[in-house]
């Protein structure tokens, strides 16, 4: 097997090196196994390293929103190396295992938390041909893996031998399991529109980004992904004013750091998944298909553009994540669960059924409709549903207010109420 070093370099530059190596060694099972292991290691390391960037960005942006400066000592004026310093600090700290802790559960929970987050990146398409593995059930795979992350939380809470950790874990699991439902229901909408569960298929179907088709489904998905990753305003799992620090109360040093890393990786993936499912992923006005030639080899410059497009789209979503964290107050646990079961779940069900039936009807009524027309019809139905929902909610709240009014009046004038009663 001959590998041309120049071609290898070109493939490395346009990000197709992994697929190229796979192709070259397709005939040799042992070499292919090694190549695949290298691919897995690369895919798992990149998001872990990205945590440094994302963590620093979040601290800096949040600081600016709160009229602070943020990290500004380590690594120059902008504190770029702050996260590195933090990780070094965590690494050097002692790992304390609480007395009476369940060692196996306690020590395996943080590892599992990182694992479930990193595994998700296998199906994320960075560019037209740059993907770990193009599963035809990719979205289903994502849901399956993220449902396993619940296990890590339970292990942490139970293994810590601490009632606050256990209660925190219960609440976390309640939150994650409930918000999984609207998340699945709302990600089914783009799957319906694309007629494909593969992430590549989702992106390829978006000649017009699906957010134009179904902005309301996108909103539901966004809100439930906030809750799934435990971000503000759903961050009561670990907020200072809540049950200590939730399920990771007892964790110290790098074991705590692993939970943080897992969380940031999951956030990155959720932003990327939102971009992939609703914003057209790596697509950028057809520029992602560009190719040129370098030194006699085809060079897929479009891959770089595609990866940059995906990165920028995800960064915008991540900015909204941070923006919400800097702005919104926190939910209480009962509000959080009520909001999910009494509003998000029924609403996303209605949305899903409407889109499913409407999309079938569109193709029955107008067999040769363009993407634009289809988008317009879906957009109209989505806005109609949104308007109807807002109207229903408004009436409901008015009714609740009216029911409360006598009580409010009575509270203001207790004597009068007393006189009435007799």
């Amino acid at each position, binding site marked *: 097997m001959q590998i041309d070093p120049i071609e290898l370099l070109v493939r490395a530059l346009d990000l197709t090196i992994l697929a190229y190596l796979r192709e070259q060694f397709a005939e040799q099972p*042992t070499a292919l*196994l090694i190549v695949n292991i290298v691919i897995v290691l690369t895919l798992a390391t990149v998001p872990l390293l990205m945590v440094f960037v994302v963590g620093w960005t979040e601290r800096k942006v949040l600081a600016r929103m709160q009229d602070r400066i943020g990290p500004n000592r380590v690594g120059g004026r902008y504190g770029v190396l702050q996260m590195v310093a933090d990780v070094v600090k965590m690494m050097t700290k002692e790992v304390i295992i609480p007395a009476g802790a*369940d060692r*196996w*559960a306690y020590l395996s929970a943080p590892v599992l938390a990182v694992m479930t987050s990193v595994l998700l990146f296998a199906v994320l398409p960075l560019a037209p041909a740059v993907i770990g593995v193009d599963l*035809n059930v990719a979205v*289903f795979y994502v849901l399956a893996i993220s*449902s396993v992350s619940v*296990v890590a939380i339970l292990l942490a809470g139970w293994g810590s031998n601490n009632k606050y950790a*256990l209660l925190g874990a219960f609440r976390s699991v309640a939150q994650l399991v409930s918000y999984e439902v609207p998340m699945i229901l709302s990600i089914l909408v783009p799957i319906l529109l694309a007629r494909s569960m593969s992430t590549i298929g989702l992106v390829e179907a978006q000649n017009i980004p699906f957010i134009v088709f179904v902005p309301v489904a996108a909103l539901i998905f966004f809100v439930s992904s906030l809750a799934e990753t435990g971000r503000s305003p759903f961050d009561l799992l670990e907020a200072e004013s809540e049950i200590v620090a939730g399920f990771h109360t007892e964790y110290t040093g790098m074991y705590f750091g692993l939970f943080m890393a897992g969380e940031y990786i999951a956030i990155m993936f959720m932003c990327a998944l939102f971009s992939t499912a609703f914003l057209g992923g790596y697509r950028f006005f057809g520029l992602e298909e560009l190719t040129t030639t370098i030194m006699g080899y085809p060079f897929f410059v479009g891959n770089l553009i595609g990866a940059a497009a995906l990165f920028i789209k995800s960064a915008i979503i991540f900015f909204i994540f941070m923006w919400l964290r800097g702005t919104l107050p926190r939910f209480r646990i009962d509000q959080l669960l009520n909001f999910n079961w009494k509003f998000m779940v029924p609403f996303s069900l209605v949305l899903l059924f409407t889109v499913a039936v409407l999309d079938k009807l569109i193709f029955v009524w107008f067999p040769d409709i363009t993407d634009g027309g289809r988008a317009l019809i879906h957009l109209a139905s989505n806005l109609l549903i949104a308007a109807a929902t807002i109207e229903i909610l408004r009436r409901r709240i008015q009714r609740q207010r009216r029911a409360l009014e006598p009580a409010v009046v009575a509270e203001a004038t207790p004597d009068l109420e007393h006189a009435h009663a007799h």
Partner: protein
Amino acid sequence: MTGEQFVFLAVSGLTIVAGILVVTLRNLFHAALAMMLSFLGVAGIYIMLGAGFLAAAQLLIYIGAISILIIFAIMLTRRMMQAQDTPFNSQAGAGLVTAVLSFILLVFVITRLWRNEIFDSPPEVPTAIMNQIVVQLGSDFVSPGAYVIPFIVASMLLLAALIGAVYVAWPQVEDEA
């Protein structure tokens, strides 16, 4: 030994060892965790058989839902921090009967299929079908020629369970109010 055989042995070994741990561990919580590992091994076998959808379903349903439910049940019914209990209880006889029957069934199936050509080379499935396998599954579920009746029956069962759950959780209305 090829790589595939090695992976198969590792995955099935994990499944079996975890399965044995489930019934021998004295700590119920650990037994539940071992059961998750066993489910994970089964998902790995599905992946090796090329059934990615089934493997993802196994993860989502058995690890993500059923095991979590079992762990919650253990935590809420036992005294939480001392989940020590003997795994041998009064249902040992019933368990033995079930195990023997399952074993007979497995032996029966395997001996019938032994030396079948299906073991020598897996049946060729066209890539067009493999790529559209979920679509095929979906349309089979609702096409009258295939599985529409089992699908509807299962849906009814789930609906009944949902309504039942809502009914059980519904706050009791006081009579005098």
